[in-house]
C-alpha cells in the first residue's frame, strides 16, 4: 500500500469532515460538505483552498533566470521583478509537459531568485526534467521546497478586503496588481504572496513555512473564509475556462492546439521545443479547445464523443453541472471547422444524443479585475 503524502493542514481537514481522496499521491479534501455551496461561497465571498500539494521549486543561483529561460515557453529573463507569468514546459516535440507559474522575485536588496509552481501530478517529472537539463549545477541553485512549505489560495470578491483588514502580512495585499508577487513575512518566517488564483475570482495565493500553515488557515477561517475542496476548485476553474493538466493538457498536445499561444514567446529565443513550435505556429488546421453548453441536466463527462451529424468531431476533456449557471458545461477539443461559437453539435452521453452548442470561453468572467 502506498502511503499518501499529507499537507500541513491534513489534521484540520480530517477534523472538519473533509472527504479525503488520493490526488496525485496526496491525501486531499475533495469537499467538506456540498461542492455547490463551497463553489458559491467562493463566487460571493471568500473561499480558502489548501493547495500545498502543488510543487514549489526554487532557483536561487545567479544562472537561475537563464536556466529557466531554456526550459519555459515564455522568457523567464523578461519577467519583471516581483511579477508572475503563466508558462509551459514543453518537450522536444513541442508537447506540453506541464503548465506552470514562474515567479521572478527580489526582496528589495540585491537578492534575486525564481520560483516555479508546478502541478502536483507532474512534480517528479519536472524535477527530473530540470535535473536532466543541468538544473543540479550550483549556479542554478535549484531546490524542491514543496515539503518545507505550504500553499494556501484565498479567493473570492471579498478576499483582498478580508486579508487587509486582518493585516496578516506587513504589506497591503490590495496594492498588488494582478499577477504581481511580493516576498514578505508570516510568523517571522519568509512568505510569498501573489495576486493569482485558479478560480476566476480576485484573490491571492500564499506560500508560507509548513509549520506556520495551520495558524494562517485558522485565522482565515475565523475571519469568515470557507474551506473549499478540490471538487469546487475544479468546477470554479472550469467555469473560468482554465485548463487542467491531464484533462485539457498533455504531452501529445502543443500549446497552439490548447489555445495557449499567448504563453509561447518564440522571437529571438531558444528553449526545449522551440524549433518544433516555430513550425507548429504556422499550422492552422488543428483541433481547437472550445466551450460547450447544454440545455438539459445530463453532464458531458471527460472522454465523451462530440458529433456534427454523423461526423465525430472531438472529445470532451472536462465537464460538470455549472453551479453558477445551473446548466451542464464542458471544455472539449473539436475540429477547426466546428469550433465557431454558435455551432450546433451533439454529445454522446452514454448512448443518447444530447444537443450542445459551442460557446465562447470563458463561461464565467468576474465583473472587475484588479
Amino acid at each position: 500500500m502506498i502511503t499518501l503524502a499529507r499537507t500541513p493542514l491534513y489534521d484540520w481537514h480530517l477534523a472538519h469532515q473533509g472527504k479525503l481522496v488520493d490526488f496525485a499521491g496526496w491525501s486531499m479534501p475533495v469537499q467538506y460538505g456540498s461542492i455547490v455551496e463551497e463553489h458559491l461561497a467562493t463566487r460571493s465571498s471568500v473561499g480558502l483552498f489548501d493547495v500545498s500539494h502543488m510543487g514549489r521549486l526554487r532557483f536561487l543561483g545567479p544562472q537561475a533566470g537563464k536556466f529557466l529561460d531554456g526550459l519555459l515557453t515564455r522568457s523567464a529573463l523578461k519577467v519583471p521583478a516581483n511579477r508572475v507569468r503563466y508558462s509551459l514546459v514543453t518537450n522536444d516535440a513541442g508537447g506540453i509537459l506541464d503548465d506552470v507559474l514562474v515567479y521572478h522575485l527580489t526582496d528589495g536588496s540585491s537578492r534575486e531568485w525564481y520560483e516555479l509552481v508546478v502541478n502536483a501530478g507532474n512534480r517528479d517529472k519536472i524535477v527530473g526534467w530540470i535535473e536532466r537539463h543541468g538544473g543540479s549545477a550550483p549556479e542554478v541553485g535549484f531546490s524542491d521546497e514543496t515539503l518545507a512549505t505550504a500553499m494556501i489560495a484565498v479567493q473570492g470578491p471579498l478576499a483582498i478586503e478580508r486579508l487587509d483588514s486582518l493585516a496578516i502580512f506587513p504589506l497591503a495585499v490590495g496594492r498588488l496588481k494582478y499577477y504581481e508577487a511580493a516576498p514578505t513575512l508570516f510568523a517571522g518566517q519568509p512568505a510569498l504572496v501573489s495576486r493569482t488564483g485558479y478560480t476566476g475570482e480576485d484573490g491571492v495565493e500564499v506560500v508560507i513555512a509548513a509549520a506556520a500553515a495551520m495558524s494562517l488557515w485558522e485565522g482565515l477561517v475565523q475571519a469568515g473564509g470557507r474551506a473549499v475542496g478540490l471538487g469546487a476548485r475544479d468546477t470554479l476553474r472550469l467555469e473560468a475556462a482554465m485548463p487542467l493538466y491531464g484533462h485539457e493538457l498533455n504531452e501529445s498536445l502543443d500549446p497552439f492546439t490548447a489555445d495557449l499561444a499567448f504563453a509561447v514567446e518564440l522571437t529571438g529565443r531558444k528553449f526545449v521545443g522551440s524549433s518544433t513550435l516555430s513550425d507548429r505556429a504556422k499550422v492552422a488546421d488543428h483541433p481547437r479547445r472550445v466551450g460547450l453548453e447544454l440545455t438539459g441536466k445530463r453532464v458531458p463527462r471527460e472522454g465523451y464523443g462530440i458529433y456534427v451529424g454523423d461526423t465525430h468531431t472531438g472529445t470532451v476533456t472536462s465537464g460538470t453541472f455549472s453551479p453558477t449557471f445551473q446548466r451542464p458545461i464542458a471544455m472539449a477539443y473539436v475540429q477547426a471547422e466546428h469550433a465557431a461559437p454558435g455551432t450546433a453539435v451533439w454529445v454522446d452521453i452514454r448512448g443518447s444524443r444530447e444537443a450542445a452548442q459551442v460557446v465562447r470561453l470563458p463561461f464565467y468572467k468576474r465583473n472587475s479585475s484588479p
Partner: protein
Amino acid sequence: MKKFSPETLLYSETHEWVAVEPVGGDKVATIGISAFAIEQLTDLVYMQLPAVGKHLAKGNEFGEVESVKAVSSLYSPVEGDVVAVNDDLPKNLEHLTTDPYGAGWLIRMKITREDSLAGLMDFAAYQKQCAEHG
C-alpha cells in the same frame, strides 16, 4: 407516503436498499438508494428511472443518478418486473437526501425469481461494508 425503517431492509453491494412485502400472492420489492450512498454523492442534479413494465434481471442497470462530481448507475438488486416508478422524484431530488427510505423510493418490482434475493445484505452487514469499503 410509506416510510421504511433502514434496520429492516436488505441492501446490495451497490448501495440500493430493498423492502420486500407480500402483495396478493406475489412478493413486491420497493427499491431505493441508501442514505450512506446519497451522502457520498452530494450535489445531485439529475436522475433517470425506467418505465413501468420493464423486466430487470438481478444486476441490470435500471437508471442513473448524476451529481456535480460524477454519474452513478443504479442496479437492480432483484429479478422482476417494474410495477411502479416514483415519477415525482427526478423533479424533487432533495427527497433522496431528506427522506431516502420514504419519499425517496425509486421503483417497485414484482419479484419473479425469489432466489434473486439471495446474497443481499442485512442492515448490520451493510453497515460493515460501508465502514470498511465506503
